[in-house]
């Protein structure tokens, strides 16, 4: 008997085994592990890059070699980049119909419920398997409004080539940090989205990343441009089966939000627990525009994820809502960054973290208010819940305020799960697991209600799954 079965209906239970199915299909092409200019040349040739991109990759590789590992944050000792396979092409072309996607790959996505979700609640779907996008489709009525949703490779050479070149890794330059440089050198796959001025998409676009190959890296690049007064909700899901060697995810997400536009970017990250998730996400928001991040981090061995918003135009806004769940062996270092540049800009960072079974979660945030960002408002609130005495929660908020009329608020709360609350719920008939799951789901509720329904349900299922057999 399960406490939450009645909570939200119509979605089947999710259990971890779904993510653990390893696809057995042999890849079509795989580069040798490690990083040399030859390997980069091979990837570039294999992908039919334009010349500028080949040069960009080689230059990024040089930057990578000359950039030290970050001296802060979780240990990356378990990550042996020389043994990460940077490029794995599945034996499939990019298709616009699921029928044409090879059965092996389609099965994997079917099990993850992606085609079903596309039929019922999405405007368009992209699905990436290892290094390449295997499926991309947008509803006709959406395409008719001029919305472009395609894989990065097609965008690089197609109609929007100039637009891509103009924006590609301009927000996140390869010199930003070592893994941004690595991304610049070996990136593959990802999505390009263009929403023309005034177009408001009322149903979301979704992209799903699946890393199936063992000991590989996934380096997808997502580039989204939302033009003046347009609106888009973009959903990103990630998963991978678990292997006993480290996998690496170092994607990059660049979001351009034009004047008066609004972009909502939702992510549920459920990578397997051998994954190093070193992802970089950044948005720039023009006058009166808004970026809303919703972020759930559940998987990964080690994670560093701090989506950044640059509030460039006056009156630009950002909201970041995030939840992190660190279980046994996980070290998740998550948070958000915001730079207030324009006047009267506002930001709200609100996060919750849960750690259990020796898991460690760190909240890290950075708020910068530039001298010219007069009348800006920033609020940071983080709450951590530890489920046992082995677990760890840290809070590292940084603030750099360069004017004297900014309105800044910060609130942090770290606590243990209340024994008395568990007793209270158990005295009403709930088992210990269900009582804890109810408390944890309740703690996470302000975040889960921001997620699309099926993701909220998935999140509750993940929480329940994590709570089963946990040491109290």
């Amino acid at each position, binding site marked *: *008997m399960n*406490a*939450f*079965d*009645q*909570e939200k209906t119509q979605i089947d239970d999710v259990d971890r085994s779904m993510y653990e199915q390893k696809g057995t299909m042999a890849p079509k092409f795989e580069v040798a592990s490690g990083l040399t200019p030859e390997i980069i040349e091979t990837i570039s040739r294999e992908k039919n890059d334009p010349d500028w991109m080949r040069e960009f990759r080689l230059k990024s590789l040089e930057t990578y070699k000359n950039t030290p590992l970050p001296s802060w944050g979780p240990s990356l000792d378990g990550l042996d980049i020389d043994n990460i396979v940077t490029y794995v092409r599945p034996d499939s072309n990019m298709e616009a119909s699921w029928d044409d996607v090879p059965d092996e790959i389609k099965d994997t996505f079917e099990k993850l419920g992606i085609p079903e979700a596309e039929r019922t609640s999405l405007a368009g779907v992209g699905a990436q398997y290892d290094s390449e996008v295997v499926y991309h489709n947008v509803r006709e009525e959406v395409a008719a409004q001029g919305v472009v949703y395609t894989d990065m490779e097609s965008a690089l050479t197609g109609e929007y080539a100039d637009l891509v070149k103009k924006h590609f890794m301009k927000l996140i330059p390869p010199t930003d940090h070592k893994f941004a440089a690595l991304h610049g050198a070996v990136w593959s796959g990802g999505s390009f989205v263009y929403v023309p001025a005034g177009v408001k998409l009322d149903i979301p676009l979704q992209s799903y990343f699946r890393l199936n190959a063992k000991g590989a890296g996934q380096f997808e690049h997502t580039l989204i441009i939302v033009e003046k007064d347009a609106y888009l909700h973009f959903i990103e899901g990630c998963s991978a089966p678990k292997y006993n060697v480290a996998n690496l995810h170092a994607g990059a997400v660049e979001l351009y939000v034009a004047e008066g536009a609004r972009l909502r970017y939702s992510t549920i990250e459920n990578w397997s627990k051998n994954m190093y998730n070193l992802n970089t996400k950044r948005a720039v928001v023009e006058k009166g525009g808004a970026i809303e991040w919703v972020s759930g981090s559940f998987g990964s061995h080690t994670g560093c994820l701090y989506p950044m918003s640059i509030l460039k135009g006056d009156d630009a806004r950002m909201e970041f809502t995030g939840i992190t769940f660190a279980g046994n062996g996980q070290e998740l270092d998550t948070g958000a960054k915001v730079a207030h540049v324009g006047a009267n800009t506002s930001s709200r960072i609100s996060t919750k973290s849960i750690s259990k079974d020796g898991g460690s979660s760190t909240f890290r945030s950075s708020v910068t208010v530039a001298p010219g960002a007069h009348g800006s408002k920033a609020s940071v609130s983080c709450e951590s819940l530890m489920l046992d005495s082995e677990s760890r929660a840290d809070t590292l908020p940084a603030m750099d305020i360069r004017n004297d009329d900014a309105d800044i608020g910060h609130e942090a709360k770290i606590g243990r799960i*209340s*024994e*008395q*609350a*568990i*007793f*209270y*719920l*158990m*005295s*009403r*008939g*709930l*088992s*210990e697991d*269900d*009582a804890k799951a*109810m*408390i944890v*789901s*309740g*703690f*996470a*509720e*302000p975040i889960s209600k921001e997620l699309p329904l099926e993701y909220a349900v998935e999140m509750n299922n993940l929480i329940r799954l994590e709570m089963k057999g946990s040491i109290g």
Partner: protein
Amino acid sequence: MAQNLLQVTNLKVSADEKVILEGLDLTVNKGETHVLMGQNGAGKSTLGAAIMGSPAFTVEAGEILFDGQDITHQSPDVRAKAGVFLSFQTPEEVPGITLENFLRVAKGAVTGEPPRILPFRKALSAEMEELQMAPEYAKRDLNVGFSGGERKKSEVLQMLTLNPKLAILDETDSGLDVDAVRTVARGVREFRTDENALLIITHNAKLLEGMQIDKVHVLVGGKIATTGGPELVDLITKHGFCAIVDENGKCLMSGEDGGCAVGEVCEPAAMPGGAR
């Protein structure tokens, strides 16, 4: 066995290595209402919590039989499923789950069968009306931001919904105004049948008004010092705990106003049955 619902024998309970209950005996039969009185710190709430299986207390010796089943070392959810209910003195706030959803889950857990949503909702709103709870409380997070009075009503609502065999009410009247005490008392009276039983921990005779009381126990120093009928409630209400004396007529407890000291023989002379 059919009549005997709760049998506590020689129960010794400690918390943080401090002994609180020192060999307590108590029997409650089906169809009975028992009242537990005693000064602060006598161990009343500890007894309630120990019967429910609170992890804050350790059972050092003795046993608790419930409906023929030894529940001394069972977890609280097993006890709840067996039919024990405790109304908490200070119920916990649980953010993120509404009172209604919580109660539906709890009802399903206790009965082993999830209730159907619409009939459940209907029954719940009827009970809430009875308790004069505003309907929006069903949609609010469990106890979050509830006033003291609403929390107590929420506890009684939970009792009525889960319909246990034994309900232990731990100062369910404290913090309530006169009208709310009457409302809660009505709810409690409505609950009692020949098949269930009540153990009421209280200081307040108001809650007991109009209630058929079978036994009144006075707890002193972790033991039941004396047991009597409903007249004990009046006596204590009138004279305070100074009314409770040993077989020699000596006070077992000092009065709140310091009128007499423990062991002192004071006027009027001792009454039979261990109470004046």
